[in-house]
């Protein structure tokens, strides 16, 4: 055997090397130990912090946007859930992943076909989705888009959602997530005043989150972005949704969650241990709003306007300035714009609305300006009376026209000799031309301004137009040439450069009705918490008191009464015997459109006059003022006045019905009934047998034996008679 083993050989060649090798090995491990010291001791705290941050994720907790209700507690805007389907590409189509076979021996089946069937995708969509998934799964490492969910379908119908949930086992990788979407149950009703919500746009977001925002401290962030806007957030775009955004929005909360490298949440004591306090901040739900609008009245306004394509109606409470109905036609369905149905659909809806020549997106009650026409005459008359320039009994002769130099100013009829009352009742232009000659433009403008015309009302909901009550200095600036008396004449009958918004006119007529108090229009009556407690209640606010002598005001009111109730009055033919209405018709010229310059039908339509009717009711103790504008509707007395009559009638019908209901509820539960005066608490429980609908908020009709309601001090509203107190 020994021949197998080779003789031992000399090792002297190696002998000196061992020490060096040992030294090298020692140094190498020393370097590694030094590196460990650097990582674990010198920079250990930083790395520990990084490791901690790796596993802690702040998850934002959603808040719910406040609900908007009308004065009767009906929900006008709330949130509903929209169900969207998300797919995780790598799980839906494992066959698309490059390393599928390498990592696990088990063959995972594709759930793609099943999902596509369930979602009712057409072949084209199916093809596109498959391509998208394959593109995402070019790589499938831990952070590849292959594991990032993609949005496939928005706002699914309930049956598809149910199917996806029921067969979840067969649809690996598909997930249904619900997302709150603004919902407007009344659809088009009140669209302009409610507005709609939309996703925050890049420009607005940049204002709240300027570059470097992420680096700011928490307080600075709070200052820069108090409502915590983030990409993809929903914000109010117009109307109440926009102007009351800060109340409606609410505040998001957050919660710290323990998360692993794949983004999965971990629970249990092991994970809890890692959470540092504070670990959660509760979200604050948005505030609810109680509007002054009465949706039932709003709906009847819509019905009354059904025959016309464009216009605006304002109904305001004469005693408070609260808006009961605010209608602009044509309107739109905010549900189409609020999202949920997908971005493509929203874009389509916008395109349609913005190309409509009737301007459905414009809130004509406050953003649109129109010549007031004859509805302006009471203010011209007041200007004359105030400065005692004209005796109301003095008669002027109307021949149907009046010539000034080369120009001829026309009247609708030959009215013969008319005094002021008859001139208003019969709407004689000639009388007012002659009146304007002696009164002058600036005096008329002063009185109009006293009533808030030509100024923004400060409603603060949609971009408000100021309108214009021209003065001599305005004309001097605008027209370089000589001032012409014709300007004054046109101003006196609400033509020329005179423009107002329907809202202004309604508030001015309310002031005519209530003895000269011009209220700030009020749309939001109270702010409430989500459980119904009142946070903030808004009392009526007086904007200004018109400095007009009461006897002059009474004289004009009397003339407005005559418009409707005397046989020569312009609105007499359409009066309703059961109603007490005082008002003024108006037929405002809009300027002639040459048929050659445009589509003849359109030109004909645009050449027609605006039909107006401005009124308050009941005439002796007014509760509401109504302004009806039918754009290019033609004659005010025949087109606008009947609509106003219908609205007034509806108002009284509703008020009477509510008074009866209130009496029933009050009789059963006396103490709570008193709260109804306040109008904002929702808590009075309906009496047994009573309708479960919330109690009416409007004060009952004033006691006929009480003081006339048209001269009340608005800040000191007398308590309405409680029918429950009467035996």
């Amino acid at each position: 055997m020994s021949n197998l083993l080779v003789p031992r050989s000399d090792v002297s060649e190696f002998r000196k090397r061992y020490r060096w090798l040992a030294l090298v090995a020692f140094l190498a491990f020393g370097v590694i130990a030094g590196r460990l010291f650097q990582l674990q001791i010198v920079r250990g705290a930083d790395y520990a912090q990084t490791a901690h941050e790796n596993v802690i994720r702040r998850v934002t907790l959603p808040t719910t946007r406040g609900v908007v209700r009308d004065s009767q507690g009906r929900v006008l805007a709330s949130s509903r859930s929209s169900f969207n389907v998300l797919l995780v590409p790598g799980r839906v189509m494992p066959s698309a992943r490059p390393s599928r076979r390498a990592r696990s021996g088990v063959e995972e089946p594709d759930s793609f076909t099943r999902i596509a069937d369930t979602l009712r995708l057409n072949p084209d969509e199916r093809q596109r989705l498959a391509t998208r998934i394959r593109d995402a799964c070019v790589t499938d490492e831990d952070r590849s888009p292959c594991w990032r969910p993609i949005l496939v379908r928005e706002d699914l119908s309930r049956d598809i959602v149910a199917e996806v949930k029921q067969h979840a086992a067969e649809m690996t990788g598909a997930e249904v997530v619900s997302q709150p979407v603004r919902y407007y149950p009344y659809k088009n009703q009140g669209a302009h005043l409610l507005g709609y919500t939309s996703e925050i746009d890049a420009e607005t977001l940049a204002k709240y989150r300027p570059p470097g925002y992420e680096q700011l401290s928490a307080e600075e962030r709070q200052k820069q972005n108090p409502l915590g806007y983030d990409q993809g957030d929903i914000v109010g775009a117009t109307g109440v949704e926009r102007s009351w955004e800060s109340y409606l929005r609410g505040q998001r909360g957050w919660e710290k969650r323990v998360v692993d490298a794949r983004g999965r949440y971990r629970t249990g004591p092991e994970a809890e241990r890692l959470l540092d306090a504070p670990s959660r901040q509760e979200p604050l739900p948005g505030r609810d709003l109680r509007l002054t609008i009465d949706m039932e009245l709003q709906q009847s306004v819509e019905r009354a306007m059904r025959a016309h394509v464009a216009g605006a109606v304002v109904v305001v409470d004469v005693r408070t300035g609260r808006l009961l109905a605010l209608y602009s036609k044509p309107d739109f369905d905010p549900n189409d714009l609020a999202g949920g149905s997908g971005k493509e659909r929203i874009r389509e809806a916008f395109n349609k609305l913005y190309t409509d020549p009737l301007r459905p997106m414009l809130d004509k009650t406050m953003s649109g300006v129109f010549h007031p026409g004859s509805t302006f005459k009471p203010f011209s008359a007041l200007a004359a009376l105030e400065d005692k320039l004209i005796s109301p009994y003095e008669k002027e002769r109307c021949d149907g026209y009046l010539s000034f130099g080369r120009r001829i100013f026309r009247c609708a009829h030959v009215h013969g000799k008319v005094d002021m009352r008859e001139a208003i009742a019969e709407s004689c232009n000639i009388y007012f031309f002659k009146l304007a000659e002696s009164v002058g433009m600036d005096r008329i403008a002063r009185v109009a301004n006293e009533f808030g015309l030509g100024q923004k009302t400060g409603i603060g909901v949609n971009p408000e137009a100021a309108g214009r009550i021209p003065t001599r200095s305005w004309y001097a600036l605008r027209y370089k040439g000589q001032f012409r008396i014709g300007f004054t004449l046109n101003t006196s009958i609400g033509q020329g450069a005179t423009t107002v918004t329907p809202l202004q006119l309604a508030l001015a007529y309310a002031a005519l009705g209530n003895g000269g108090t011009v209220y700030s229009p009020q749309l939001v009556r109270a702010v409430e918490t989500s459980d119904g407690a009142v946070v903030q209640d808004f009392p009526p606010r007086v904007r200004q008191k018109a400095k007009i002598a009461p006897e002059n005001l009474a004289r004009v009111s009397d003339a407005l009464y005559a418009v409707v109730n005397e046989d020569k009055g312009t609105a007499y033919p359409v009066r309703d015997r059961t109603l007490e209405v005082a008002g003024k018709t108006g037929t405002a010229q809009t300027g002639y459109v040459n048929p050659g310059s445009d589509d003849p039908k359109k030109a004909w339509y645009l050449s027609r006059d605006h039909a107006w009717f401005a009124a308050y009711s009941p005439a002796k103790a007014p509760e509401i003022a109504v302004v009806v504008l039918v754009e290019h509707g033609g004659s005010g007395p025949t087109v606008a006045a009947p609509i106003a009559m219908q609205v007034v009638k509806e108002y009284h019908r509703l008020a009477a019905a509510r008074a009866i209901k209130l009496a029933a509820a009050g009789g059963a539960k006396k103490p709570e009934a008193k709260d109804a005066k306040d109008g904002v608490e929702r808590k009075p429980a309906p009496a047994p047998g009573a309708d479960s609908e919330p109690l009416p908020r409007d004060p009952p009709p004033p006691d006929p034996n009480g003081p006339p309601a048209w001269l009340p001090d608005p800040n000191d509203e007398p308590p309405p008679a409680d029918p429950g107190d009467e035996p």
Partner: protein
Amino acid sequence: MRSRRDQARFFGMPRDSFDWTLFLTASALAVIGVINLYSATSVARAALSDIYVQQVYWLVLGGILGAVVAVIDYRHYERLGYLLYGVGIVFLVLVFILGKDIRGSSRWIAIGSFGFQPSEFMKLFLIIALAKYLHDDPRTEARSIKDLALPALITGIPTFLILKQPDLGTALIHLFIFVTVCLLTRIRWQTIVGIVVSAGIFIPLWWTYMMKDYQKQRIEVFLNPEANLLGSGWHAHHARVAIGAGGWRGQGFMQGTQNQFLFLPDQHSDFPFAVFAEDWGFFGCLVLVSLYGFLVLWAIRIAATAKDRFGAVLAIGVGALIFWHAVFNLGMVTGILPVVGVTLPLFSAGGSSVLTILLGIGLLMNVSMRRFWVSPTRTTSLLSRG
């Protein structure tokens, strides 16, 4: 007739010279390694959770094979050196024919349900072949480039085959074993200068024409580690965070969040040290690094006491194997070297790796046990006593 004495000489086993230091050091590493694997895979998916059990099986099998290797007198390996080398080369060629393709490279041959990685065992065959060459070529004067040509060829063939798989890490280990063995011998300084200069020319060419893109990417990540934290820098970054988060005393066994929450990739194969560092902190790491350092120094000591050239080169070769594996892996995990897939001896899970290291330790034991050999005449008397 074969006498009992001849049998005893075939095994050549002086019982009293069992190297307890080597045995205990290696055992300590293996035990810590299994415990650490338990922590590393405790959270992971079911497919991984029995990895530490498999590791125990492999350690037992490796221990038995290592004992067998240690018992047979190493001079038999010297005799069969080139044959073993040839078998290794044949298996490397077989990889290209039968290899399993994983993540773009084929390194494995499937035997039943097990994967067998010939390149791991090739390291030992290379060491034996180099040892045999130096054994057969004793010199007292310095060696020139001509004298190094044959060992370079012996190293070059498997290195090239492994590079083609491609498996940069293992190829580098082969190369560095060769370099270490060369350092053991006396080389003319002109030759050293020549090699350094030609390497200076060759490496850029290699970078341009032979490196795979993923290999280049790893080196770029190493040179600029913070550039792409979510992409290719992910592994290196999270390993560093895990180690740093360990601090002085560590987060505690199975408490490291980087590992428990899956931020560490390949936590059982290439990055178990990061798990260990996070769990046990700087103190634990010092113990572990000291164990590796001690094992390497002990291998050098065994080489120094070896009584012939073959044994000395064998011990140095196995020492170099452990040294380079440990240094590459620890350097990679701590971020002082680029990420190359090199396992940490007795720490990384994997049958071929564990078997190779334990067979290597068996060789060390073999050389160590036969260090008291003095002269053929004394051998007889020693053996006759036992």
